[in-house]
């Protein structure tokens, strides 16, 4: 394919093709990347033409937002010179990443926001927004009902129609069990779903009993425990005590692996308060 002379119609088709190739033959990614590299400028131009064209068909007062999801989950790879693929992606290429003429949301690995590159990240993109975990407990560890309600709603909305009518009491043996499940997720939605799934794996017939939740929590704990090297437990204990993190490699790594979760709330006077805690499944290990 000739990338040199791209016009919008061709571009559209070719992009579709490229996407298809990347999806069906992921092994070709590197090759495609290498081929495209010299043509980045042209591609961005074509994309912008495409965006402009798309926007012209939007209803008035409507704007386009592109969300590049899952970039936060890129596994870090460190080069011999100490740089990481994060820096290569988000900092070295910031010009290109910002070149699209629409709103665009990139999900960055949380570790990058807390790293020595934070300033550069801010200078290039503006202050990054952190999507904290949903607070299921207050900073003093007592359950936070509003957050718990949100978690429960997420579960309720995913119930199959037959069960929606009969409500949560038909699904969970008791309110406490549901509460426990939500608390154990740490307000992290992915884990809430994972826990729910493992609970169901471990339930023969409804309602869900305490033991099933307990075993699902054990399974999740087992996964989290693996991300913690033995001498990191001390650091986790400290975070659990102080509800604070230090800006160092270890804590950034623990944030990335979600062994430490970040929470935010607004105080009565409107001040934003940020605090941290160890993922609740790990508390038992501290």
């Amino acid at each position, binding site marked *: 394919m000739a990338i040199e002379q791209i016009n919008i119609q061709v571009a559209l088709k070719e992009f579709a093709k490229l996407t298809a190739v990347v999806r069906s033959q992921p092994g070709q990614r590197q090759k495609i990347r290498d081929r495209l590299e010299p043509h980045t400028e042209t591609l961005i131009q074509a994309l912008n033409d495409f965006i402009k064209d798309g926007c012209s068909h939007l209803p008035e007062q409507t704007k386009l937002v592109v969300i590049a999801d899952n970039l936060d989950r890129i596994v870090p790879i460190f080069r011999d010179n100490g740089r990481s693929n994060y820096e290569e992606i988000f900092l070295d290429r910031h010009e290109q990443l910002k070149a699209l003429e629409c709103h665009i949301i990139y999900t960055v690995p949380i570790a990058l926001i807390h790293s020595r590159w934070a300033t550069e990240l801010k200078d290039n993109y503006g202050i990054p927004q952190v999507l904290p975990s949903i607070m299921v407990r207050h900073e003093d560890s007592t359950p936070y009902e509003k957050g718990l309600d949100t978690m429960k709603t997420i579960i309720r909305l995913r119930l199959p129609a037959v069960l929606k009518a009969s409500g949560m009491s038909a699904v969970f043996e008791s309110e406490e069990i549901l509460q426990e499940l939500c608390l154990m997720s740490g307000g992290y939605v992915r884990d809430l779903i994972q826990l729910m799934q493992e609970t169901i*794996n471990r339930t023969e017939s409804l309602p869900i009993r305490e033991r099933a939740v307990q075993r699902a929590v054990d399974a999740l704990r087992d996964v989290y425990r693996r991300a913690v090297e033995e001498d990191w437990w001390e650091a986790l204990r400290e975070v659990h005590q102080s509800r604070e993190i230090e800006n160092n490699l270890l804590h*950034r790594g623990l944030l990335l692996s979600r062994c430490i979760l970040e929470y935010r709330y607004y105080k009565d006077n409107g001040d934003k308060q940020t605090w941290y805690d160890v993922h609740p499944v790990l508390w038992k290990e501290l």
Partner: protein
Amino acid sequence: MVKQLWGKEFDKFEGQSPAIFEGLDRWSPELEEELSDLLRAVRRKKGFSLFFVQCSPALGERIIEVIRERFPQKKLARFELDRESKTLYRELIESYQTKQFEIACVTGIEQTLYAYEDTKRLAGWSEQDIYNYSWKGVPPLLSHLNYHRELFEENLPVALIFLVPRFAIDYFVQRAPDFFDWRSGFFKFMESSEDLQKYFHELVSQKYGKYLDLTPEQRMEKILEIKDKIFQIDPSDNEQKSNLLREQGRLFESGGSLVQALECHDRALTSNPKNYNAWHSKSCVLHSLERYEEAIQSCDRVLEMQPSYYRAWGNRGKALYNLQRYEEAIESYDRALEIQPNYYYAWNNRGITLRYLKQYEEAIESYDRALEISPDFHPAWNNRGIALYCLKRYEEAIKSCNHALKIDKNYYYCWFFRGYILGELELFQEAIKSYETGLEIKIDDYQGLVSCGNLLRRVNRYQKALDSFERALKIQPNSIRVLRLKARCLEQLNLRKDALDSYTKIREINSNNFWDWYYLAYDLYYFSEQREIIS
């Protein structure tokens, strides 16, 4: 996000009582519960679903059998990966198109990971900062799984079950979290205590020599297997844990990973400070790390508990010898030999120590004792030769060397030493031949090359001598002694300009050694004089 919506599964709630498996009375209640969970999850899922089952390979086979028995109406396909596997999707889809299976069991993923540097980290206990660790990238199979995720879901409406050992799950969690997070379930099967006991029993009888014969990948497999067992034993069983850790340490040691080995032994000793075998193994590692004082302390710990542990006395002697505390070393060897008079290593080492004390006759007696017990122990023949040489009994010394070389003709050091004695006897041709034989075995031995070159020079074979010195200089380019020898050869070959270059190089190295300068001046003096005569 997790793509499997759990909501769908409620349709299939059948309210049936927990499965009871025929002929599976060997499953413990815990295993049975985990197994029925797994079977239930597999039964309920429609479309693509991904399960991870942590188990030992043997247990994995049994689990696959049970799945087969429980779902006779479903087609099950087995996929065994090996060290070379880099892809899985293609194999699955090709097979799926012809066989239309509903369940795919994949084993052997761990095989694709053994060669990776990360694996070594996961295998040990070394507490290095994971984020300072230089990752050697993600193993091809894991990136393959990460990249093909979506294709699996779109095109393979099957239950995909990975049966993997513990460390492979660790690997997934750390290096392919996206793929792992897609799981519809994670199940963990522990081995029964009888199986574990059987394993311990087999492990304890292993000889260190056996470990040395392993390939790096086999060794890694074994180390990980042990680590896996450590996680399975009763945490209060410190004795067993300590034994396993020590075994792990010995495996690391046999592969030359001394730091990891030491870490294992230290942990073994934290678990059970009374594990004198671990103290002993630790002393071996410390010795290899040239931390002799600490090695001695470790030996002392062994001997406090087990005064008749003669190998510890032997190790202690060796460490003392390396600290040049020869008298004490002899005492230690004597203790070892009191307990075990057939410990020929100690007789040999005792001989070496005596030689340093210039007690050559006694040294020879010691070597003779070693050779009485083990006539094929060639280092003792060589050492005996050295002692005889020191007593100027050259003929006997050469005979002793010949003996050593008859047993091991690749014992290059002995070829060199033999050449050296022959040189002293001015049997230059034979001496050179001996050196050359040694250098065929060890082509880059600096000392061998220099000595051989010197002999060649003495019989006026300057060109050959020059070759020898050049080779030595490749190994140690700044050796003033060799540069000087080289210059002299060049002079003899009338290559004056090259000789001068060699002298210039010596000047550039700018040694602090008075003698270097002295010889340089001396050489240049004669050199220039000769030049004047010639001109």
